[in-house]
């Protein structure tokens, strides 16, 4: 019994750690009824990078085994194919922590972990409510299932350190999905704090790049960049934690078409959680700022 509890706590810990990181991967939709476009395939071609993103045709899953698919992507990326670099880097970064799990099991793991005293992820410096953690994880899971299905996760562990360079190359070539993935996995592959500190100038470079990619992706019409910026202001580490900015970006995202299939309770709870850190004047300001961000986003204007 004791061992079972410890296992569940560890599992819930892993889920907590992954929760917010994964939620930003939910497919963007240009309208609530549009098909899911951009999971494993880039949304835009290089020539599209300066214009609004184009919805890509849904990709058919390639009839390859996991190892063959990864090897093929690796070869193509090495040969200079930036689409392959985007996809391979994304798989290495995103799917390394993937596990197929049902909504019910997510709930049970989170509840068990909380009951055992596990610290949930922080939002604006305070623990996220369990319901919010569950909803965020449940929101993220289908996209992860779509993106990572058929991949043997064990084959990704050794290669995670390669993800940032692959994603950076693809993002520099205008691949929006790679920009988003880079913002989440720019620091993959470091062997702990010692390792990061000994390369602190590279850490600083990657951080700047990740922040710039999110703003670039937003200016290219990618609503998920607003979500990831909101998350960065809510929980770090790419931005200094600022509940007012987090509220503004999250509310801008929730206005977008991409968020219309998000459960209303999730949207409400996330904003409520942030609002707890704001007084009335700050909240009013955050709402106004969110509206302005959304208008700028819709107009394709650079974020202020």
């Amino acid at each position, binding site marked *: 019994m004791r061992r079972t509890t410890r296992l569940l706590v560890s599992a819930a*810990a892993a889920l907590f750690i992954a929760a917010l990181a994964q939620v930003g991967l939910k497919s963007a939709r240009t309208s609530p009824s549009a098909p899911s476009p951009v999971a494993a395939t880039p949304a835009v071609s290089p020539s599209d990078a300066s214009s609004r993103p184009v919805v890509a045709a849904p990709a058919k899953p390639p009839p390859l085994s996991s190892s063959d698919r990864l090897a093929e992507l690796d070869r193509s990326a090495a040969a200079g194919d930036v689409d392959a670099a985007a996809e391979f880097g994304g798989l290495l970064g995103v799917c390394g922590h993937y596990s197929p799990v049902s909504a019910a*099991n997510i709930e049970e793991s989170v509840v068990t972990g909380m009951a055992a005293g596990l610290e949930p992820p922080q939002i604006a410096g305070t623990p996220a409510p369990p319901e919010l953690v569950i909803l965020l994880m449940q929101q993220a899971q289908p996209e992860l299932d779509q993106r990572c299905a058929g991949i043997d996760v064990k084959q990704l*562990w050794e290669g995670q350190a390669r993800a940032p360079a692959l994603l950076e190359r693809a993002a520099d070539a205008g691949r929006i999905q790679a920009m988003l993935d880079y913002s989440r996995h720019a620091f993959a592959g*470091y*062997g702990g704090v010692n390792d990061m500190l*000994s390369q602190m100038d590279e*850490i600083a470079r990657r951080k700047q790049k990740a922040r710039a990619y999110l703003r670039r992706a937003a200016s290219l019409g990618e609503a998920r960049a607003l979500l990831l910026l909101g998350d960065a202001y809510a929980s770090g580490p790419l931005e200094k934690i600022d509940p007012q900015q987090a509220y503004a970006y999250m509310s801008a995202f929730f206005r977008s078409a991409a968020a219309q299939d998000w459960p209303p309770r999730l949207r409400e709870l996330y904003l409520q959680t942030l609002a707890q850190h704001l007084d009335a004047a700050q909240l009013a300001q955050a709402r106004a700022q969110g509206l302005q961000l959304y208008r700028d986003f819709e107009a394709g204007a650079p974020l202020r």
Partner: protein
Amino acid sequence: MRRPGLALVLLVTALLAWRFWPAPRLPAPDASPPPPAELTAPAMQAEPAPSARPAPAVAPAAAPAAPVEPPLPPHLRTARRLSEVFDELLRRAESGDVSAMRELGSRLVRCRDSSLRRLRREIREDSEVRPGLNAAAQANARRQQENLRDDIADCEAVPDAVRNSGLDWMERAAATGSGAAQVDYVEFAFGAFMQMDDDEVVAEIDEIRRRRDLARRFVAEAMAHCAPRASFVQYYWGDLLFDHGDARAYAINLAAATDAVARLDIAEGAPATIVQGRQRQFESALRGFDAAARAEALRRGEAQFKACAGR
């Protein structure tokens, strides 16, 4: 509580496998013993005691020793709890007492948010009484937990605005030119960084780099003033102090710092195991580089040592 189903068990297994799988590491310096070194490495040289020998012309000229600040009254250094001496230390530090700045700073560094988070984590992780422990060990574990809780409470008693200012006080002390304060700054700043988690490093990277650059300046000044422990700190934190941009230059810097400390060890009669350990580190730092790199590292290490020999 419902029993988890099969799917959850599979999930748990998969997640645990992921969680405990070793993270990919970038290549680390080879710590294995090197082949026998030539008899030019410092540890193998029978050198006269530094005090018996004047510094040669090749050694960098050492600046006059920095002024030494008057010591603090003993109770300010020995009080177990910061709360017992906080007001007095703060008053002295604010009036420009460098020793008080150092003492206050070093105590406050342990109260930083990241340090407290780490203490709380330790308490949480150690809170389960392990069944294998005997009664004495359990009592000892409980005592340690109580001490940790007292440490946290002591820090929490400090006003929030001051609690994270430890490194700022140490910076202020070091900026006065005190060699001891400069050495302290390097040790405490880098020690504090090591308490951070990955996300904190990313979040604070600009401040970390600013402090790293300051540490570089302070350690250079402390070396120039022959401050006690300056050579050792340069060697110990060389991985963070020296620029990694040029691998050869980095290796030479690291090896030179190791060589300087090895010479100090010999001069101070350190045990042979320590001296041999430094020699292995010297060789390891230069593995893969040519004889010219080795000679340059030895030349610089000797110069660093001789600049302060006998002082």
